[in-house]
């Protein structure tokens, strides 16, 4: 009995674009188009645009070098030679002019390279790079993205007992963050870290409350924050705050499967004084 030939092609369902596909030749490279494609996750096309621009000397060379390095970070397939090439670009950009836009971007992405992209990441070096970026250009929006990274890296580099101090010290980064979105992200990270630490529940509640006041656009993360405030408040014994946010969760997230449990829980809270 012969099984159909298709059995042999089962792996085809899993294969992706072949690496061997040759890169497209680009006559008129344009960095702006490269950034546009990069923002739509079309990293391969974006890298080809910057690579061609670099060779043909089109556009501002620093911008083009930055674009190529940023795309090389996640260009697939991931091989060490790509990361090394990206690193050389970034380091050259920083050395030449550390204070213009490409220079600041290069510092941030060099830190990202060290923190996440390298085959064996070096967290300490990444932390120093982030801190250097904040000291020199605290107000720059790219540097503001580094704030959360610094807090996370410091938190996990310390053993558990010293982590409360890390959070305490991180509080004064709030002064640095100008726009509401960056501020909301800061409160989110502080809340997420505090709830993982014994005795820091109150800090988590404060941060989540401030994040909630700044209107969280994404409905799913908003539901999690509302529920967390209620659960943390209940654990800390603040029953009124807990009840208020449980009711807010029931009202706003009708379709969520946790809704029914919260309603039953609210009834049981009514019985006990």
């Amino acid at each position: 009995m012969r099984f159909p030939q298709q059995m042999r092609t089962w792996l085809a369902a899993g294969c992706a674009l072949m690496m061997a596909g040759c890169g497209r030749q680009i006559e008129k490279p344009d960095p702006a188009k490269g950034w546009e494609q990069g923002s739509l996750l079309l990293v391969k096309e974006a890298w080809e645009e910057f690579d061609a621009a670099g060779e043909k000397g089109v556009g501002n060379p620093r911008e083009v070098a930055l674009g190529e390095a940023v795309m090389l970070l996640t260009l697939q397939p991931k091989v060490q030679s790509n990361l090394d090439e990206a690193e050389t670009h970034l380091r050259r950009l920083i050395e030449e002019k550390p204070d213009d836009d490409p220079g600041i971007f290069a510092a941030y992405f060099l830190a990202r390279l060290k923190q996440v992209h390298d085959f064996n990441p070096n967290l300490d070096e990444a932390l120093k790079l982030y801190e250097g970026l904040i000291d020199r250009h605290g107000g720059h929006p790219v540097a503001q993205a580094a704030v959360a990274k610094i807090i996370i890296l410091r938190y996990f580099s310390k053993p558990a007992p010293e982590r409360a101090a890390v959070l305490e010290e991180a509080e004064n980064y709030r002064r640095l963050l100008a726009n509401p979105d960056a501020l909301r992200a800061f409160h989110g990270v502080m809340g997420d870290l505090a709830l993982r630490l014994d005795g820091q529940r109150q800090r988590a509640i404060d941060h989540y409350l401030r994040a909630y006041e700044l209107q969280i656009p994404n409905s799913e993360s908003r539901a999690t924050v509302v529920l967390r405030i209620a659960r943390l408040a209940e654990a800390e014994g603040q029953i009124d705050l807990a009840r208020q946010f449980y009711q807010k969760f029931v009202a706003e997230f009708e379709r969520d499967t946790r809704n029914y449990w919260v309603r039953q829980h609210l009834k049981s809270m009514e019985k006990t004084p």
Partner: protein
Amino acid sequence: MNGAAGIPTTVGSNKQDMPKHVFIWLVLAFELLPFYMMIQISMKTNREFNVNQWIPNAPWNWDVENYRYALELVLPYIANTVFVAVTGTVISLFLALMAAYFFARYRMPGGSILWSIFLVLMLMPGVANIVPLFMLIKGMGLMNTLWALILISVAGAQVFAIFVLRNFIEDLPKDLFEAAEMDGASHFQQMLNIVVPMCAPILGTLFILSFLGKWNDFLMPLIILRDPELFTLGVGLIYLDGEYNKDWGRVMASFFVASIPLFIIFLFTMKLFVKGLSAGAVKG
């Protein structure tokens, strides 16, 4: 005698052959059971099948509706399928015959390297990667054409045919070739006049096997063809492949109707390769 397959029940005249016939029929009973199931299921509606799967319906309430559905489903695709299957099989056998002749005739320098290329392909496990193949066909501008189907199926069938044919050609007595060479026959003539007649039986078998492979294939047509008019039989039959509730009666009827042309071509090839050609050749 198992009357299901409609074979005349009178046994051949020779007496000593009787035990052989009994043994063959015993084995064939098992081999033809699926065919019997296919026929009797195709006569039933899904409702009847669900209740009783094994015993055929009484002749008076055989359900013909399945066959009407099958004919309607299968007819538009028969022509394309025959075109692809026949052309593909003839080309692939011809190329395989030439390659097998090359390997079997002399141990030419470089022959073992070429042979290992073929062998590697045959043994490489099922990582057949459709995407680059698709890009190739697109690059060659063969999208949405039957010729693309033919070329791919020819490439696919080559290795097995060469592997089998080489063994058979090597078995042929060498003096035949020397005699032909004496008379000044070119390699091509030697191949046609000696190898083809002598290897007729295996050529017939390979013709049927590769024909069958192309007849039911539905993955390649679906990927390469876009206009419904070009679809082959395999694509037509996919409508029966409902994941949740298969209509067994219709599936069986459609497969049976789809295999009638296959059947006719088998009968024809069996006759041509088994009797016609071998009678003419010089027997060893």
